[in-house]
């Protein structure tokens, strides 16, 4: 099992990554010569000075940097939004993060359900046409950008059969198409991983023993082979969550879902420094902790794994 010491080291590592990421964001945003209020319009210098002072952008850069870092790390305060007036970044994220997380979790569930099902089917019918079909579909699914999938889904289910609503997020039905568009490419990867894992495991002696004691194929597959074959899938969950969250940048735009992704794209385009870097920070923390959780889960599934990494 993972010892408290390695856990502590890993958490320190997460903090280190966040530090690097915040520094990169800070440097990038302050590389713009004009600053966030230079959007082509002529502003009264006095008003501009006031604005800069209000958002703590008039201090020397090193001082701004130290103050921002202090706020982020010690108080968890991500600063004010520069463009959404009277909103703090924390408030914006408190509203949009749950939306993105709901979408992400739904997409992950879609990916797992379809991926595991298809992978098991392909492994059980190894070499047959079902296998070829599933694996061909998986190669295609990995290659398809989620916005292409989204486009086809919208075309079929919104405009042709009129089964689902297009935009917004007012009912659970609004989540169906975005989750599928977001989850399908990852379902393809999971199907491949699970199939390979199952094929490896199904050749083991103890599987033959399970068969010999008279268990049906299905029972052998799901009760005995599935758990060890899940290991590659479990270690893929970290990257998958990262991919799903970044994929939601596009999917949230397509379906007009008010999540973290749409806020990020808007804030990057509008030079809303604090909001953009706040989203990046939250995203980094989420992905790093998810990876940590995946490693913990891995150790639980496979007792042979030492928590030394």
């Amino acid at each position: 099992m993972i010892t408290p010491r390695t856990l502590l080291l890993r958490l320190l590592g997460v903090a280190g990554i966040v530090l690097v990421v915040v520094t990169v964001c800070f440097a990038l945003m302050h590389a713009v010569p004009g600053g966030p209020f230079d959007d082509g319009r002529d502003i009264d210098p006095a008003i501009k000075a006031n604005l800069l002072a209000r958002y703590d952008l008039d201090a020397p850069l090193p001082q701004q940097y130290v103050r921002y870092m202090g706020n982020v790390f010690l108080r968890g305060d991500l600063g004010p939004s520069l463009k959404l007036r009277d909103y703090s970044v924390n408030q914006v994220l408190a509203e949009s993060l749950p939306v993105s997380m709901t979408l992400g979790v739904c997409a992950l569930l879609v990916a797992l359900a379809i991926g595991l099902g298809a992978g098991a089917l392909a492994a059980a019918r190894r070499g047959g046409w079902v296998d070829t079909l599933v694996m061909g579909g998986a190669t295609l699914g990995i290659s398809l950008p989620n916005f292409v999938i989204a486009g086809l889904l919208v075309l079929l289910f919104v405009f042709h059969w009129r089964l689902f609503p297009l935009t917004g997020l007012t009912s659970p039905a609004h989540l169906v198409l975005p989750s599928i568009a977001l989850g399908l490419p990852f379902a393809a990867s999971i199907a491949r991983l699970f199939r390979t894992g199952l094929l490896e495991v199904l050749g083991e002696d103890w599987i033959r023993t399970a068969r010999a004691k008279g268990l049906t194929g299905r029972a052998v597959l799901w009760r005995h082979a599935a758990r060890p074959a899940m290991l590659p899938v479990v270690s893929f969950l970290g990257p998958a969550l990262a991919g799903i969250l970044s994929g939601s940048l596009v999917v949230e735009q397509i379906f007009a879902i008010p999540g973290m992704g749409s806020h990020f794209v808007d804030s990057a385009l509008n030079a809303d420094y604090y909001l953009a870097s706040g989203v990046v920070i939250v995203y980094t923390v989420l992905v790093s902790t998810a990876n940590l959780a995946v490693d913990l889960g891995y150790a639980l599934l496979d007792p042979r794994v030492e928590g030394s990494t």
Partner: protein
Amino acid sequence: MSAVPLRARPGVWRRLVRRPGTRPALVVLAIVVALAAVAPALPLPLPSEMDARVASAGPGGAWRVADPVSLGQLADDHPWAAALRAQVFGDAELAGVLGTDDLGRDLLARVLWGGRVSLLVGLLATLVSAVVGVGWGLVAGYVGGRLDQLMMRVVDVAYSIPFLFVVILLIAVLRDEELAGRMRALGLDRLSVLYLVIGGISWLTMARIVRGQVLALREAPFVSAARALGAGGPRIVRAHVLPNLWGVVVVYLTLTVPRVMLFEAFLSFLGLGVEPPGVSWGILASEGLESLTVLGVSWWLVVFPGLALALTLGTLNLLGDALRDALDPRLVR
């Protein structure tokens, strides 16, 4: 990392084409690339040519006389292709094969011209990632010791950085007029920035793979023999290490091309990649989705750019997998 260096073995090509699906994939990819390459010489309207009379027309296509202004513009931008086209097709052109968008622009022309940009960015970004990744991995693996540890530590940290977000920020920052002007003064237009940035963040896995290979090669008997015979570092790298690297490098590059093309499509879709009036498949996919309204559904604007992306990325991924299996018999099941 593998202890046995992976090398090009005889019969790679045979194993590759014997695998089911490889031949059709090669043919499809060759057709896509060829069509994109000769797009300026094909008898099609220009991708930016608007024609209100045929706006939002479905697929069909008919021969007509080309617009002289467009032909003149083509002759200015691509004199050879324009001459070739005039020789073969005269001033006839085939319009509306895949339909038109809401401004009456020809979708087939836009898909083919967009393919030029998407494929070019994909290739150049892959090249950038190859140069950086192979260089990084080669130095780390060959020099070894502290430098190796430091360089691989950098790669580890970089793996955890959410580059997609950082790149979006970077590109948004570079949209600033003054910065863009400074970049142009350095000879970097929007497209160069795009492939440099995409390539600049896609080299991490390549560096790891190459380092592992170099570590194994460095201890291989034939390298020790060369060293015992008095060969120096540069000669060993050039004559013994590099030739044995190409297998893994080629395999990984084949898999990098679809990845970076996807990245370009993603950025262009968000409006942060190729800028209109330039066309790329990402832009076309985004325009297609925007065209879907309750008033009218131009399905062809969604389906055909998606199909172009799916065919190209799908065949590239398939070939990459096939090449990996063909080069590495240990993986053959």
